[in-house]
């Protein structure tokens, strides 16, 4: 046993290994990281879903114009005029006969000639992001083109988009809660470790150790432990998320699996945990030292 060997990492060794608090800290960090991965996965998947749904819906609506053959053209023009003047309407398209036939084919079968039928004229509306005021539009249409009916048929999907957004919120709130709980637990674990090691701190102070020496020893220990635990928990959580069986047919939640830049968020978990541990332990150590001369 040479002095040199003994000196290396000495500041660390003065803190007793304290098996259980160590394991508790590591386990807490790991479990919380694991849960954080899940919450994050849920949140990101919900976010992706919400985006996909909103873009897929493409926010369309239809105006159906039923009028005597003579008035049809005039009313169609009136509708287009009204629509183009409506805020929230991005694009207006008057459907051609061929378009309409394609739409009706599933119902009436192919080979049907629309010429012979009093088929209503359809006008497709692409909403802008803000959307339009359906009630106001209906009133104006009624005034300008009495045969026009606004069919707001895509609106039914909006609750789904809202739900996905809520799901994302829920995931984010959970992730934040988990982070806060982790911080609190690590603070308490550090406090409890420091309380258990009051005697050690006293001895160190009495033989002339500076505060910084003592704090370093504890902070180092706890930060490393938390980092280790969080790394493990993140790895396990990611494995679980990646191994989750994909649903049969490309449905919603296909993708709890992270995509592209999302990896970044997961990689943040261990360093953020370590940072939380660092700050928590430092504060706890400063608090503990205050009572010891």
């Amino acid at each position, binding site marked *: 046993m*040479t002095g040199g060997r003994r000196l290396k990492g000495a500041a660390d060794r003065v803190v*007793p290994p304290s098996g259980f608090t160590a394991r508790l800290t590591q386990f807490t960090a790991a479990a919380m990281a694991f849960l954080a991965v899940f919450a994050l996965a849920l949140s990101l998947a919900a976010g992706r879903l919400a985006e996909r749904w909103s873009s897929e819906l493409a926010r369309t609506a239809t105006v159906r114009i039923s009028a005597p053959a003579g008035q049809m053209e005039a009313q169609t023009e009136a509708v287009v005029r009204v629509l183009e003047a409506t805020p929230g309407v991005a694009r207006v398209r008057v459907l051609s006969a061929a378009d309409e036939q394609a739409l009706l084919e599933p119902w009436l079968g192919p080979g049907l000639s629309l010429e012979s039928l009093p088929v209503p004229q359809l006008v497709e509306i692409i909403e802008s992001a803000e959307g339009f005021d359906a009630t106001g539009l209906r009133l104006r249409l009624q005034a300008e083109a009495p045969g026009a009916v606004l069919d707001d048929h895509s609106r039914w999907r909006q609750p789904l988009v809202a739900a996905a957004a809520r799901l994302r919120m829920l995931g984010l709130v959970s992730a934040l809660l988990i982070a806060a709980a982790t911080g609190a637990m690590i603070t308490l674990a550090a406090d409890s470790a420091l309380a258990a090691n009051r005697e050690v701190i006293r001895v160190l*102070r009495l033989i*002339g150790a500076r505060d910084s020496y003592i704090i370093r020893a504890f902070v180092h220990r706890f930060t490393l432990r938390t980092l280790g635990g969080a790394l493990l928990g993140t790895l396990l959580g990611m494995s679980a998320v990646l191994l989750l069986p994909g649903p049969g047919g490309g449905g919603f939640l296909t993708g709890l699996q992270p995509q592209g830049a999302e990896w970044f968020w997961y990689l943040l978990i261990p360093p953020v945990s370590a940072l939380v541990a660092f700050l928590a332990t430092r504060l706890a150590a400063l608090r503990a030292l205050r009572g010891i001369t």
Partner: protein
Amino acid sequence: MIELTDISYGYDGGELFSRISMEIGPGSFHFLTGPSGAGKTTLLRLCYMDLMPSGGRISVFGREVGAMSRDDIAAARRRIGVVHQDCRFLDHLPVIENIALPLEVAARRPEPENLEALLAWVGLSARAQALPPELSGGERQRAALARAVIMSPEVIIADEPTGNIDWEMSERLLELLIELNRMGRAVLIATHDLNLIRAAKARVSARVLRIRDRRLQAAGAEL
């Protein structure tokens, strides 16, 4: 080097000392006696800045204790070797590392020969790798003394260092302290062991202080 002037102190409520003064000069040798509970340990704790007086001034190595920062106190403590009455150690480190701990804390490198000579002197060579809880009562006290002197401190303060040690070993430890004193170190020992005081007085010019009625007296010739 340590100077107490008109010190008062008392734990919550009662007053243990009122206006006592004392000076530990370089090369001096003091004994502190008094009945159990008189305040010997308390007085020593004031000397090594573990307690702050409620009245009066203490100066250590020329600096007023009240004006010292926590780091100043840590630095001053490295120049004082203390044997605590209850011999505290880090229970997870072997005896030899505990004894070398003051060096480590001061970022100084222990010299293996010195360490081994010191262990031999206190009779712990065979127990160097034992953990403190595996030591006998007397072995703990000897280890504590070894830790107190390893930094070659300018002042050595020992609180009841021979309470659990047989007479033969006590004399040997006294020998070590006297030798250090001859090398210029100041020594302050609290003890109720009159034999120890008598043995010391035969060999060095030691002053004996006694705490009585909240004051410090020079002990009479009965010793």
